[in-house]
């Protein structure tokens, strides 16, 4: 290949084109390779080694220790296992609450704001989206203030005659608290005596702590706007004719939403749930800024625990192992959700008229559907693609430091 990129390529344009193709993609390959592929491989090695943080992990005096780091976390019976179990429990409850709440709220807001006749749509959209642009650090600082024991939230609750909890200092599980209202203070021995990952079943079922619940509210507050945008883009992609046909058939608003609009939104819903799930399993910034795992380790998350093990306790192998276990968890959950929400043939046929490709722009493996016509922007996937891209990279960069 001796052609330069300056040469006009009229007929045999493969040569020059290939060269510029490699030149154009070189920065991407080098940067992503060096700061993403290589690190993952290196961390994989560290998770099987006894590296202590001194010198290079690739030097000769670092030994391969097999699955020791992993077994310490999963069957060790020590503090490491207990902490890992606790972190998983906290994060699992966080996911269970945040994902449905943020999805439902985002859809609700999108449906409200998407009405053609609404005046001031722009204002409302902006208001709902604004929390999404702020940094997780700034918003956590604000949250610490709003939810302190004499803060704004408790003041509001006191007007309603409710005595608010000392939010970020309250380690009690909310389900335990709820049972406590009925005088149930401790669980049956069947639950309290048997453990999983060093945490008793009674504690597993205790719900998130009050402190963690404040973080749940924070997450819903900051992500519902982003997902609202996605749903709006999805709604605008739907042709009006089906809805109108349903109106003609006498379906009321409620039926139209559940039986006409929602089934057509399936791809968007899928994207939102996937992004939500991926994001929720990686809570780090808020914990680092806010509570550092306190009170009583009830806001510890695997992500923060991984960081803490490596950087504070110099348990590098264990920190890396936690990260990979978390990776596996995220992959499994995503696959599980894919399987649950899998497209059924019938709805596919129903959707064909709308040309919304399934799993569009979803970072888990979007289909490369080839070059599209220029009109695509006007009537099909353009807006959805861009909005999905924006939302996806927002969610990702919130959690990934954008260096993906």
């Amino acid at each position, binding site marked *: 290949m001796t052609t330069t990129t*300056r040469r*006009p390529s009229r007929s045999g*344009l493969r040569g020059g084109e*290939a060269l*510029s*193709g490699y030149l*154009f993609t070189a920065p*991407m390959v080098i*940067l992503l390779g*060096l*700061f993403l*592929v290589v*690190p993952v491989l*290196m*961390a994989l090695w560290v998770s099987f080694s006894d590296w202590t943080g001194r010198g290079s992990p690739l030097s000769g005096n670092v030994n391969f220790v097999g699955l020791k780091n992993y077994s310490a976390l999963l069957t060790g019976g020590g503090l490491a296992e207990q902490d890992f179990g606790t972190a998983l429990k906290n994060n699992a409850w966080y996911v269970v609450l945040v994902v449905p709440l943020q999805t439902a709220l985002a859809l609700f807001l999108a449906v409200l704001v998407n009405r*053609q006749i609404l005046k001031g749509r722009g204002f409302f*959209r902006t208001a709902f989206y*604004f929390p999404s*642009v702020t*940094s997780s*650090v700034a918003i956590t*600082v*604000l949250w*610490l*203030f709003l939810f302190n024991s004499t*803060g*704004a939230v408790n*003041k509001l609750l006191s007007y309603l005659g409710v005595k608010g909890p000392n939010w970020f200092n309250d380690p009690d599980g909310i389900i335990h608290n709820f049972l406590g209202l009925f005088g149930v203070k401790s669980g049956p021995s069947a639950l309290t005596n048997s453990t999983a990952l060093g945490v008793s079943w009674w504690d597993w079922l205790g719900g998130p702590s009050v402190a963690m619940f404040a973080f749940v509210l924070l997450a819903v507050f900051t992500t519902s706007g982003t997902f609202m945008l996605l749903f709006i883009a999805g709604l605008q992609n739907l042709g009006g004719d089906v809805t*109108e046909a349903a109106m003609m058939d006498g379906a009321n608003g409620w039926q139209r939403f559940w039986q006409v609009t929602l089934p057509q939104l399936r791809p968007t819903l899928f994207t939102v749930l996937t992004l939500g799930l991926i994001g929720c*399993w990686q809570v780090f*910034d808020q914990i*680092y*800024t*806010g509570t550092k795992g306190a009170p009583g380790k009830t806001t510890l998350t695997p*992500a923060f625990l*991984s960081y803490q093990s*490596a*950087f504070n306790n110099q348990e*590098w192998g264990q*920190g890396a192992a936690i*990260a990979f276990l*978390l990776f596996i968890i995220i992959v499994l959950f995503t696959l599980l959700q894919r399987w649950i929400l899998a497209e059924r043939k019938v709805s596919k046929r129903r959707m064909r008229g709308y040309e919304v490709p399934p799993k569009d722009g979803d*970072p*888990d*493996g979007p289909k*490369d559907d080839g*070059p599209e*016509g220029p009109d695509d*922007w*006007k009537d099909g996937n*353009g807006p959805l693609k861009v*909005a999905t*891209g924006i939302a996806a*990279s*927002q969610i990702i*960069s*919130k959690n990934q*430091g*954008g*260096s993906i």
Partner: protein
Amino acid sequence: MTPRRAGRTSRPSRGLLAGRSFLYALLVVLAIVYIFPFLIQVATSFKTEADAASDPLSLIPATFSTAAFERLFLHSDFPIWFKNSAIVTVFVTAGRVFFNSLAGYALARLNFRGRNVMFAGLIAVMSVPGVVLLIPKFLVINQIGIYDTYAGMIIPLLTDAAGIFIMKNFFESIPASVEEQARIDGAGTFRVFWSVVLPMARPALITIVILSFQGSWNELSHFIVSTQSPDLVTLTKGVASLASGQLSQGTQYPIKLAAAAIMTVPVAVMFFIFQRQIMNASDGAVKE
């Protein structure tokens, strides 16, 4: 804006009117819930500490005080943090606009062996959760000797898979005929890209600018693992250390909230400038 649909023109009936008022009332309440925390934030940053503690809900400071801002700007490292965040954000945004569009264009338009493999790799890379990367990123940055430098803060962020993906999608959506024309006139690949394609890609580029700016300005974990010196602390890292009570005794809420409010201003400004772009991805994407 989508065109008004037919069948929606007649004057609303009484029932509709009631429904509509309810809708507006609901929206206004929701909007207040979403905006009020930020109003409290700004108000509290002008309060005295005692006032902030005793009356957390009021939007008017009992005694108007700028002590928090003076403290931040004159007696703390806050200006250094701000400077560092600005430096990183400018470089990262410029880098991403350039590198993402280069790679996106190549993946969308240029034929070369291995293109599909590269694209598959890009998708795979996108699905790696960032948390997994905290420790390894530190390992690599340390290994190649750019730990605790601006280079270590900036270079790893210079391109991102999601941005490349957005650019690729955009380039695929614009007709190839314009490029063909330029090629026939004898322009080389880079020339076509630089003078013909990029100007057409303005909407997508603005999207990348917004996302890069937001992403790097709000970034925390990468700076935690790539730096330790106090001279390289960014706003996110600095304000996070404030939150854990670094400055002094007491809760210091006015100072913390003032810091958080100031760091929100640049992204908020960006947001309002490009609001139409973000809110109506569909509007911006169509070339008039």
